């Protein structure tokens, strides 16, 4: 059982970390709650279904195609909708929420509400100390790890990463220092949507695909980034694994666990925030303090 808990936590946590990191980046840099984030995850998963199952493409090509298309769609969304109302915080939340519904409904029209499944990229399993781990799960975890490390390196080592972090710290000063803020915002939106797409692509073969699949991770991502501290990269990754562990523990240990897993994870978030209102790794800005 313990092995099961560990494996499931790592797999789930990896996916959540990918989703939460993107969301957290957008919030940190653009100060925008982009609520259609998990819609891109759903779109990427459907991309895999379309290319790999309906069109019968090679897994590699279908992965690349659906990540690229989803990212392009994210950039388009940003340019057309979010950028224009970025100053009105509530309006941004509502527009992105409405966009999430639009994507969901378009998918419902094209693919109907029927449950779909995408073919596994790899089959078989690997036995580590007596636990059978499906290669697909291993692939999810490894993929998530690689992408997370890559984003971490990008943010901490490259010039672009420094520009992104500078914009997150203070948009106006960053602008004065010669950073093209609107380009940075676009790049961040691209990275974030790309991360969501990677998450969607990786988990697609293990999930039942239907257009409403964006809501369960939506709530979890909200909980994770709040727990970790909004806009904090480290926080969103740590938060993802904590909440994944809570979810898995509840499912394994309680009789009615499947119903309570979301509730338990959210309860942990509420308790942490009551004790530490800025989240685990959040920063309190002086002017935002109460």
């Amino acid at each position, binding site marked *: 059982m313990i092995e099961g808990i560990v494996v499931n936590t790592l797999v789930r946590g990896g996916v959540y970390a990918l989703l939460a990191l993107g969301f957290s980046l957008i919030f940190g840099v653009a100060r925008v709650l982009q609520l259609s984030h998990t819609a891109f995850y759903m779109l990427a998963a459907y991309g895999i279904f379309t290319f790999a199952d309906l069109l019968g493409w090679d897994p590699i090509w279908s992965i690349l195609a659906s990540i690229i298309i989803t990212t392009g769609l994210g950039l388009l969304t940003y340019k057309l909708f979010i950028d*224009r109302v970025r100053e009105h915080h509530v309006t941004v939340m509502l527009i992105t929420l409405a966009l999430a519904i639009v994507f969901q409904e378009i998918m419902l029209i094209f693919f109907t509400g029927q449950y779909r499944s995408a073919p596994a990229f790899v089959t078989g399993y690997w036995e580590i100390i007596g636990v059978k781990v499906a290669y697909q799960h291993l692939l999810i975890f490894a993929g998530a790890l690689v992408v997370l490390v890559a984003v971490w390196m990008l943010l901490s080592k490259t010039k672009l990463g420094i520009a992104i972090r500078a914009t997150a710290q203070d948009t106006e000063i960053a602008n004065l220092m010669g950073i093209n803020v609107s380009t940075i915002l676009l790049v961040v939106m691209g990275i974030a949507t790309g991360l969501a797409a990677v998450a969607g692509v990786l988990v697609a073969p293990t999930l039942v695909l239907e257009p409403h699949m964006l809501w369960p991770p939506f709530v979890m991502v*909200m*909980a994770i980034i709040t727990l970790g501290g909004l806009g904090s990269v480290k926080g969103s990754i740590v938060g993802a694994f904590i909440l994944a562990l809570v979810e898995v523990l509840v499912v394994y240990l309680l009789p009615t666990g499947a119903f309570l897993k*979301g509730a338990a994870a959210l*309860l942990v978030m509420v308790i942490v*925030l009551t004790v530490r*209102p800025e989240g685990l790794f959040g920063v309190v800005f002086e002017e935002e303090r109460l």
Partner: protein
Amino acid sequence: MLSRLFRDFQGDVIAIPGRLIAVVFFALLFLIPLFVQQPYVLRTLIFANMFVIFAVSWDFISGYTGQMNFGHALFFGVAAYTSAMLNRGAPLGPDWPIWASIPVGALAGTAAGVIMCLPALRLRGPYLALVTLAFPLILTGIIFANTQFTGGELGISGLDRISESRTVDYYVSLLVMLVSVFIMWKLTDARSGLVRTGIILHAIREDEIAARASGINTIRYKLFAFIVGGFFAGIAGGLYAHFMRIAGPSTLELTLSFQAIIWTVFGGIVSIYGPVVGVYILYPMMEFLRVVPEFRMLFFAGIVVVILLFMPEGIAVWIRDKLERECPRCKLTNVWWRRTCRACSTSLY
């Protein structure tokens, strides 16, 4: 006395297009059952009335104190479930009649508001939004896990009707809606001489630190907003449960919380009349869109996106700004076609 009342009416209602429209609109709402008897139309309007209370109470909490509440369905759902449990009387002794179960349900909504406040008072902005989002979802999990009390996915059904006839139902919902909205409107009226809460809530929204520095106990007023908002959302929830004759987990759904926000922001946040306009436009529109069921949500979301892109302040505020013009000198509201102020004849250009 009567002539003075008439003069006030003339000056404060007829001269201001926004208020004149509101009065005419509410008068029309009273007359509708005389002309339209189709149960379906009345049913749609009854739901609209309930959701007006719900959306306005969201505006009261979130618009006026700036506390973004993403879990407003909590109050609605708690009240619906409490009313249902009391009315069905299963674990709590005898069946309660409807006139007792709805107010007690609303009080349960108030209690939920106080509980939600405990973490909420320390948090701000997005953190608050996301914590409030969590509450109804936690409760939904608990409801699914304890099916013997709550009926799980099916909910509690077989409640008493509000009344035997649809027309009476309609008038009950309309009256409750009018009274609730009027109370909340008065409580947030910054120019009121009777209650101070309006101006204080406005102050907290504009600048919380400045309000604290002026000696306002902002915590107390935020708590007050949650209590009042929770109570009225609870009334809407109780009415809804008794009208539907069932209280199910759908009353706690994320969608319902978001609906309140969508209606309010669509109509115009921080205005009380905004959510009223939002609900009476969007709710019947949603019903009308049932003619194309597959495209219903798509059209709905599309309209919300387009309207918000071009009128970020909300449709009611946008229309009001077109119809009314404030005198720069005496701050009196004038009709858009006047070139000079009706009281002090200052030029309005």
